[in-house]
């Protein structure tokens, strides 16, 4: 301990100097830790992009894989992923949004509601490969959908349900209670209130959740491994048949499975094709996530209450 400065009692003491040093040191270290997590990933993404550059072109995206995947592009898997997203969205979005509505608007605070919330948390935590097993046992064999786009979509829908439920619930909870009370006082029923007041006021938040579901569905491999994805299928190169190449009953190619196959199982695939496929997947997911972030910022700026 140094002696207090007689002339200026507010002068900084050695103790305080040390204390501030510690503070700055910790701030610096934690900042360093944050960047240790982020920087390598950014560098890796840059590296992938550079390696993928020779393959990236319009034809890489719009051509089908040819000659045992050693030539052509990734149109077949890409459109398969899109179809998987759309069908799973059609199944998961209504159920998830209505479940969110139930949890926020109808459920009382009792043990049963707590049980539902616990189930949602657990559904989110079930490993993706177990979802795949469930899809195989339930949709493929029990409901006899065979290995198909429909079975895979159902599996992915169940897996992404908790994302939609949770974000819908949060979006609805952010609508102030007086909005509902005012509507009830006008004589509206519960469902009328939800339809005309609650849902329109929380639509951005709900969409954010739906978009996150899309991002997750686009990237998952394990649930579709045994429920419908296939290594290679002949699809048309042009016309309507190339836009919607798979029926609900058909097995399909998907981008994530395609990347897994050409990265680990297939020989003689040009390096740049693997990197190109990875970059297209990352690009897709980042684009989708940016939309969701944009929505969130828009939502925050527009909130009037």
């Amino acid at each position: 301990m140094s002696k207090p400065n007689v002339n200026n009692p507010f002068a900084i003491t050695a103790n305080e100097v040390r204390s501030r040093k510690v503070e700055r040191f910790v701030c610096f270290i934690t900042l360093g830790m944050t960047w240790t997590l982020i920087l390598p990933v950014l560098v890796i993404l840059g590296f992938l992009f550079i390696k993928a550059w020779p393959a990236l072109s319009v034809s890489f995206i719009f051509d089908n894989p040819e000659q045992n995947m050693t030539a052509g592009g990734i149109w077949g898997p890409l459109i398969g992923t899109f179809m998987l997203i759309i069908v799973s969205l059609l199944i998961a979005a209504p159920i998830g949004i209505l479940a969110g509505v139930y949890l926020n608007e109808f459920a009382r605070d009792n043990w049963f509601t707590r049980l539902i919330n616990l189930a949602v948390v657990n559904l989110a935590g079930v490993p993706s490969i177990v979802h795949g097993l469930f899809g195989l046992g339930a949709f493929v064999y029990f409901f006899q959908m065979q290995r198909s786009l429909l079975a895979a979509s159902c599996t992915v829908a169940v897996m992404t349900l908790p994302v939609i439920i949770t974000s819908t619930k949060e979006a609805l909870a952010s609508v102030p209670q007086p909005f509902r009370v005012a509507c009830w006082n006008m004589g509206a029923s519960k469902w009328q209130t939800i339809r005309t007041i609650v849902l329109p006021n929380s639509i951005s938040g709900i969409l954010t959740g739906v978009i996150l579901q899309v991002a997750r569905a686009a990237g998952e491999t394990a649930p579709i491994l045994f429920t419908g994805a296939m290594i290679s299928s002949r699809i048309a190169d042009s016309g309507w048949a190339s836009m919607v190449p798979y029926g609900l009953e058909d097995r399909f190619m998907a981008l994530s499975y395609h990347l897994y196959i050409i990265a680990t199982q297939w020989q003689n695939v040009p390096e740049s094709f693997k990197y190109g496929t990875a970059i297209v997947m990352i690009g897709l997911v980042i684009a989708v996530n940016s939309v969701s972030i944009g929505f969130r910022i828009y939502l925050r700026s527009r909130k009037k209450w």
Partner: protein
Amino acid sequence: MGSLLGNYLFRWLIKQLQDRSEPIIVCIIYICGWSAILFVIAIFLFVFKESLPALTGIETEIAVGEIEVEQLDLGEFTTSPRWIPESAKKPAFGILALLVGTLSVTVFSILLAVPLGLGAAVYVSEFAGNKTREILKILIELLAAIPSVVWGFIGIVVMNPLITELSGEAVGLNILNAGIVLALMSVPIIVSVSEDALRAVPESFREAGLAMGANRWEMIYKVLFPAAKNGLLAAVLLGIGRGIGETMAVLMCTGHSVNMPTSLFDPVRTLTATIAAELGEAVRGDLHYHTLFLIGVVLFAFAFIINLTADLVVKGIRNQGNV
């Protein structure tokens, strides 16, 4: 006139639908609300049902009735490190090596991810300004957005050469590789849950700490950490859950050989990767097939226990907050 009447009729019909459909819609909402419970139970039942013949030795076929099938030796299943399902002479179904593989990769990834994730959470919640916080959170969400198969690809094409270069090992697909990749994958959830926990500590706690003459660091580790300890624990648990359940990345990065590891540079195989790699070849109705589903049941049980614990622990914080 006709169109006017049609228009009126149409509107009347819509209005009737909107007004009268209320009970039906409310009923649908209730069913959807309960669906989460239904799905969790269904997942367990269907996976368990497919694994049952391995336990009982009896398979029920609708057309044939009950048939005797090969039964799994549960003692071997839980304690043997030998996993040789495709052997024609004497197949062995011991998951010990797989279990150790899963645990070693998960533990190593958690040892990396927790300190870094916690540090990042402290910076984002306590030191960063508003702008920086937003940017960092978006970047960390970016980590969460990268699909697991791409992480696996990164493990193969980036980490693999890097590890062989630096360590001199022949192959770089091992615990170290998978652990690093898995750490990067589980960091986002650790950061976001622990940041939530730190920010849930009331501002008055911080002010009181600072007013007592503590600097920011002393305030963080003597006031914030104890106050947020439940949330931080939940973050670690969720990170572990993520690690145990991850499939594609560990399938591609661990080297995929059944092995009791002795060092970080040993290749291993995990429970999830085994299912992903072998279920495609297993014949339906085979002991191998049923055993893979039994591994699924084990994974489900792990995930269930971890999530339940994390949930109870988080409930702990809320109760504290009310006091």
